[in-house]
C-alpha cells in the first residue's frame, strides 16, 4: 500500500465569511487563486463533477468530484492533477469565523508520498491560501502571485496533450 500524507495550509482573511465563500466557489469565472482556472460543474452538490479548466476551456488541470458542500463553511472534493498518473486525493476547504476574521484552512489528504502531486500540493497550497487572502482583502492577487500567474500564461503552450478538456468530460468517472 502506498504511504500517504496530509498537508495543511491556513490563512486568516479579514473579510465577511460569505464573501470568502463566494470567491472560493465561484463558477464560470477566472479564479486567480486557483492558477487562473475556471470551475466547471453541473451543480455544486455532492456527487457532482469538479473540473478546473483554462479560461478558453481547452485544457483541464484538475479533476474531481464534490463530496460535501456546506455553505459557507465546508467544501470537500476528490482531487487529481490531469498531467500526473498519481492516486486521487481529497481536498477540504474550511472556513471558520475566529476573532472577527475568517480562518481559511486548506487540507489535502491521502496524498501519495514522494509523488509529483505531493510536491504540487505543497507549493499550490501556499499559493492558493495567500492569493485568496489578497484577492478578497484587496480586490487583486498579491504581487508575487501576479508574477506567477503571468508565467503560467506565458508557458501555457507547453501544456501536455493529456490535459486537453476532451479527455476529461464532466461525465467521466475519476479514479
Amino acid at each position: 500500500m502506498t504511504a500517504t500524507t496530509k498537508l495543511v495550509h491556513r490563512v486568516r482573511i479579514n473579510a465577511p465569511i460569505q464573501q470568502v465563500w463566494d470567491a472560493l466557489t465561484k463558477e464560470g469565472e477566472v479564479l486567480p487563486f486557483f492558477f487562473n482556472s475556471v470551475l466547471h460543474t453541473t451543480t455544486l452538490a455532492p456527487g457532482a463533477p469538479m473540473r478546473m479548466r483554462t479560461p478558453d476551456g481547452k485544457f483541464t488541470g484538475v479533476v474531481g468530484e464534490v463530496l460535501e458542500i456546506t455553505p459557507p463553511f465546508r467544501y470537500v472534493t476528490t482531487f487529481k492533477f490531469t498531467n500526473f498518473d498519481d492516486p486521487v486525493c481529497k481536498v477540504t476547504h474550511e472556513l471558520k469565523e475566529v476573532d472577527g476574521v475568517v480562518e481559511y484552512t486548506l487540507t489535502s489528504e491521502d496524498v501519495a508520498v514522494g509523488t509529483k502531486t505531493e510536491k504540487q500540493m505543497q507549493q499550490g497550497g501556499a499559493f492558493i491560501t495567500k492569493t485568496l487572502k489578497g484577492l478578497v482583502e484587496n480586490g487583486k492577487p498579491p504581487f508575487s502571485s501576479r508574477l506567477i500567474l503571468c508565467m503560467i500564461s506565458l508557458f501555457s503552450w507547453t501544456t501536455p496533450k493529456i490535459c486537453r478538456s476532451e479527455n476529461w468530460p464532466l461525465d467521466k468517472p475519476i479514479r
Partner: protein
Amino acid sequence: MKPDSMDAVFQALAHRHRRKILDLIKSMPGCSVNDLLKYFNISRIAVMKHLRVLEEADIIISQKIGRTRELHFNVVPIQLIYDRWTTEYSQFWASHVTDIKFKAEAKAKHDRDH
C-alpha cells in the same frame, strides 16, 4: 498580514526549541506531542508551552482526530513574511548567494575533516 500576527510569527521563531519542533513536525506531518517528546530533554509541559506559541502564530496547526491530536506545519505565515521583502528577481539572486555560501561551507568542512 496584521502587524500583531507578524509579531507572533517572529516571536514563535525566536527560540531554538521551537525551531527544532518546527523541523520535526515538518519532517513528520501529523505527528503527536508524544512523538516530539522523544527528541527533547525538557518536560512535557515545556514542550506544550512552546507548541502553544507556535499555534498562536498559526505556524503549527493542531487537529483532533478521534482521541489523538495531529500536528501539522503551516508554511503560509512564513510565506507572507517572505513575500513582503522578496520579489521574484531578488529571490533568484539571493538563492545564488545562499548556494555559494552552502557550497563553500561544505567544502571548508570537508577540508577540515580530511
